[in-house]
C-alpha cells in the first residue's frame, strides 16, 4: 500500500483518494488471478456517479478469480503532489500502483475526457501507445457510448468493447485465464478475443486513406478479425446481474444517490441523439424487479434518495404502477424519489407534488428547437401547444421556474429557427401571467442553449458542423432577440463543442493529435478551469492534422471510420431519416409504428423487444 498521507494533506478533497468506503470490495491479491483497474477518466465526484461503473464493478467482483478496483483521474492539485513525490497512479481499494494490473478498462462517456486517459496512463507509467506495450503490461481497453467510434483512440487502446458489458466482460476474463494457462504471447490473447462478438482489436485492421484523407479501405489483417463488429446487448434486463450494493462515498459526489435503470434504449427517434440510436431497441425491466432492486439498495446503502435512470422515464409502459410502488417504499423509508426526464402531464405533476412535497423549484423541458419546422427536422415530436399546455399546468400548480433546453447549429437550420427560441420563451412567460395563481411573484424562464454536435450512428452523421464563428453569431442573434427580463439565457462554449465534434467523427489520425495534446498538458477538457483552446490548436499543428477536415459535410459515398461497427440500426435507415429531415417530415415512435430500423435483429428470433 502506497503511503499517501502526506500528499493528501495538501489537496482539497482527500477523501476522493482514500478508498475504504462502505461496500467497496477488498480482496486478497494472492487469492485472485486477475487484477482489473476500472478507470473513469474524470474526477472521483463525476466517476462515482456513473451507474455503468457500479454495474461492472459488481459483475467483475462476483468472480472469485478477479479483483476489480476503481481508478479515477486525480484533480490538478493531487496530480501535482503525485508527480512531485513520484507517486504512481493507484487503485483506490488496494492503494497499489496499477502499473502491473492485468487490465485497465476505461469508460468513454464523453469525447472531452480522452486526454485524461493519456494522462492517467502516463501517471501510471504505462506506455501510451498500444504498440509500445509488451508482455507483462496491462491490457488497456475501453467501452461505453463513445467507443462506437473507437478510431481516435485506436492506437492507445489494445481493444474495445462494443455495447453492453455485463456478459462480454466475463467472456473476456474467461479467455484471459485460458490464455494464461496456455502460456501465450500478448498478441495471442488479442487474437483470441477478436473472435468474441462485440470485441474490436484495432491492431488487427489496416486502414488506407484517399489523397483527400477520407477512408479508402478498412480491412482485417488476420483471419481472427471479423469484418463487422456487432454490438452486444443484454436481451433480458430482469435476469441480468444488477448490484445489490453500491459503494457509498464519504465526500459529496455529483449524483449521490441510488439510481435504478428502468429501461435501456428509447422509443423516440430524435435525429440528433446518439443515445437514442445506439441503445436500441428498448428493453424494459419489470416494475417488480425494479422495486426489489430499490429495496435491496436502500437497505445496503442507507441512501436518502432514489432516482430513476433512463432516457425518457415517462415512456416506461407501466410508469404509474412503478411510481406508486416506489412511492410506497420511499415514504416508508423517509427518502426522496427523484424523477428526471418526465414528460409533464397531470399524472406526473401530481406525482411531483407528492415526491417534492413543497419545494417547487425548477421544471425542465427540452423542446430542443424553436420552430415547429425545426422540431420536425430533428423529429422531436413535441408541438408548441404541448409545451405551453405543460407549462400552464405547472404554473397553475404553483411552479415559477422553468428551464428550457435548446440546440443551435442543427442541420437545415435558418435564422428564423434561432429567433423562434426567443419567441417560444416569451410565450412561456405570457402563459405564466395567464394562469399563475400568484402573479405578483415573477416567473423565471431559463433557457440553456447548447451547440449541436453531429455524432456517428445518427441520421445527422453526414451533417456539416457549424464553425465557431457561425455558432457565436447565432448565440449573439438569439441574445439580442430576448427582450423579456424574466427570460435568462445561458449557452455552452462553442470551442468545446467543435472539438467534441472533431473527436466524435474522428479517424485514426487523431491519435497523433491526442498524443500532442497530452504532451502540451491538455487534461480535464470538459472543465472550464483547465480547458485551453490555444493548446489544442497547437496540438493539431504539431500533429500535422487539419481540424476543419472533421467538421465538413460528408457524402453518402464516404466510408466512415466507424462503418465496421454494427449497432443493429442500419445505415440505410439513417439515410432515410436524413432525407426525411430535409423535408421536415417526422417518423412515429417505436410504439406507434415500427419504422424498420434494423435493431430487431439483435433480439431473440429477430422480433423487436419494444412493447406495444
Amino acid at each position, binding site marked *: 500500500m502506497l503511503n499517501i*498521507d*502526506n500528499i*493528501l*494533506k495538501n489537496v482539497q478533497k*482527500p*477523501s476522493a483518494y*482514500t*478508498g*475504504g*468506503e*462502505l461496500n467497496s470490495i477488498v480482496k486478497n491479491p494472492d487469492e485472485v488471478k486477475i487484477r482489473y483497474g476500472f478507470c473513469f477518466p474524470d474526477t472521483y465526484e463525476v466517476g462515482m456517479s456513473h451507474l455503468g461503473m457500479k454495474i461492472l464493478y459488481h459483475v467483475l467482483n462476483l468472480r472469485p478469480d478477479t479483483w476489480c478496483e476503481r481508478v479515477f483521474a486525480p484533480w490538478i492539485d493531487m496530480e501535482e503532489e503525485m508527480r512531485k513525490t513520484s507517486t504512481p497512479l493507484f487503485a483506490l481499494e488496494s492503494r497499489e500502483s496499477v502499473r502491473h494490473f492485468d487490465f485497465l478498462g476505461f469508460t468513454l462517456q464523453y469525447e472531452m475526457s480522452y486526454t485524461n486517459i493519456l494522462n492517467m496512463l502516463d501517471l501510471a507509467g504505462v506506455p501510451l501507445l498500444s504498440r509500445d506495450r509488451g508482455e507483462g503490461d496491462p491490457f488497456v481497453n475501453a467501452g461505453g457510448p463513445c467507443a462506437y467510434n473507437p478510431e481516435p483512440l485506436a492506437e492507445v487502446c489494445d481493444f474495445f468493447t462494443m455495447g453492453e458489458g455485463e456478459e462480454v466482460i466475463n467472456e473476456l476474463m474467461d479467455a484471459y485465464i485460458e490464455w494464461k494457462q496456455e502460456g501465450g504471447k500478448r498478441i495471442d490473447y488479442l487474437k483470441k478475443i477478436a473472435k468474441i462478438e462485440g470485441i474490436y482489436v484495432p491492431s488487427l485492421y489496416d486502414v488506407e486513406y484517399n489523397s483527400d484523407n477520407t477512408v479508402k479501405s478498412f480491412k482485417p489483417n488476420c483471419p481472427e478479425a471479423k469484418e463487422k463488429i456487432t454490438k452486444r446487448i443484454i436481451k433480458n434486463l430482469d435476469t441480468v446481474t444488477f448490484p445489490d450494493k453500491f459503494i*457509498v462515498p*464519504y*465526500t*459529496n459526489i455529483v449524483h449521490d444517490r441510488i439510481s435504478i435503470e428502468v429501461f435501456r434504449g428509447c422509443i423516440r427517434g430524435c435525429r440528433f441523439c446518439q443515445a437514442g440510436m445506439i441503445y436500441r431497441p428498448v428493453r424494459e425491466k419489470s416494475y417488480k424487479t425494479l422495486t426489489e432492486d430499490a429495496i435491496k439498495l*436502500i*437497505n*445496503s*446503502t*442507507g*441512501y*436518502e434518495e432514489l432516482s430513476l435512470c433512463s432516457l425518457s422515464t415517462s415512456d416506461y409502459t407501466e410508469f404509474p404502477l412503478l411510481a406508486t410502488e416506489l412511492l410506497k417504499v420511499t415514504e416508508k*423509508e*423517509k*427518502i426522496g424519489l427523484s424523477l428526471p426526464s418526465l414528460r409533464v402531464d397531470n399524472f406526473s405533476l401530481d406525482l411531483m407534488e407528492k415526491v417534492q*412535497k*413543497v*419545494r417547487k423549484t425548477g421544471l425542465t423541458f427540452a423542446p430542443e428547437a424553436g420552430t415547429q419546422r425545426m422540431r420536425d427536422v430533428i423529429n422531436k415530436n413535441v408541438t408548441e401547444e404541448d409545451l405551453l399546455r405543460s407549462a400552464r399546468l405547472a404554473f397553475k400548480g404553483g411552479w415559477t421556474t422553468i428551464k428550457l433546453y435548446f440546440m443551435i447549429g442543427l442541420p437545415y437550420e435558418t435564422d428564423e429557427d434561432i429567433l423562434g427560441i426567443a419567441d417560444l420563451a416569451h410565450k412561456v412567460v405570457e402563459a405564466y401571467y395567464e394562469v399563475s395563481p400568484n402573479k405578483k411573484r415573477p416567473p423565471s424562464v431559463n433557457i440553456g442553449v447548447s451547440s449541436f454536435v453531429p455524432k456517428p450512428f445518427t441520421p445527422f452523421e453526414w451533417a456539416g458542423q457549424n464553425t465557431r464563428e457561425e455558432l457565436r453569431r447565432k448565440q449573439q442573434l438569439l441574445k439580442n432577440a430576448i427582450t423579456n427580463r424574466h427570460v435568462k439565457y445561458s449557452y455552452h462554449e462553442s470551442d468545446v463543442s467543435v472539438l467534441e465534434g472533431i473527436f466524435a467523427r474522428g479517424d485514426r489520425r487523431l491519435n497523433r493529435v491526442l498524443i500532442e495534446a497530452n504532451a502540451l498538458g491538455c487534461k480535464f477538457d470538459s472543465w472550464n478551469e483547465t480547458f485551453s483552446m490555444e493548446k489544442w490548436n497547437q496540438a493539431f499543428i504539431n500533429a500535422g492534422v487539419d481540424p476543419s477536415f472533421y467538421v465538413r459535410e460528408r457524402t453518402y459515398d464516404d466510408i466512415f471510420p466507424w462503418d465496421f461497427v454494427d449497432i443493429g440500426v442500419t445505415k440505410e435507415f439513417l439515410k432515410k431519416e436524413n432525407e426525411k429531415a430535409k423535408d421536415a417530415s417526422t417518423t412515429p415512435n417505436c410504439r406507434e409504428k415500427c419504422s424498420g430500423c434494423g435493431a430487431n435483429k439483435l433480439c431473440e428470433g429477430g422480433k423487436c423487444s419494444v412493447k406495444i
Partner: protein
Amino acid sequence: MLKYDFYARYRKMGRAKYISHLDMVRVFNRVFRRGRIPVSYSEGFNPHPKISFALPLSVFYESECEIMLFSVTEDLSADELLNRFAPVMPEGLEIIEVKAGKPDVKHLSYCLYDVYCNLPSSDELAAFLALSSMVVPKKTKSGIKDADIRCDIADIKLEDGCMSMLLSAGSNANLKPDVVIKAMNKYINGYFSGDCEYLRKSIYTNDMVEI
C-alpha cells in the same frame, strides 16, 4: 412524538480519519437507515435526523472517544441499539458503547491527545512549558490570527513514542495539538517535529471527569 435520548461513543481510525466533520452527519444518517434505527427527525419541510457531536474532530485526526448524540422514537435498550449499529458501520468507524441520556457536554473543557512525531527532550519540553507566552497563527472564526496559546495548554508529557497533550477544548477555548506543534517548532531551538499523527484519547469536564 416520543423521544428517547442516547449517545454513542465511537472510534474514528484508519481511513476514516479522512472523513470531514461535515460529512460525518451524512455518514450517520445512512448508518441509521441501514441499521433500522428509528432516529428522531427534525420537523419542517425538509426533515433530517437530529444528531449532534460533542466536539468536532479535524480531518487527519484519529480518535478513540468521539461522541454522537441522537434520539430514537421507540423504546429501545442501549444494548439493542449497539447491536443495530455494529454491523452497518463503515471501515474505521466503530461504536464502543451506547448509553441512554445525555452526556455532560455543557461542561466539556479539556481534551487529551497523543501526538506521534519527533519528540523533544524532556529538558526542551520543560523549557517550552516554562514560557509565559507562545504566539502562533491560529484559525479563529474571523480567519487566521496570531494568538497566545499558553493558557490553553494544561499539560504536555512525554510518553513512550509520543507526546500526550492535555489542552483546552469546547466552545470557550479550543486548542488543537497541531497548533501546539507549530509553537514547539517555533520556540524550541533546533527542534523539528516532522510529520505528525494525532490521536484524540479522551474528553473531560472542567472537573476532569471523563465524558
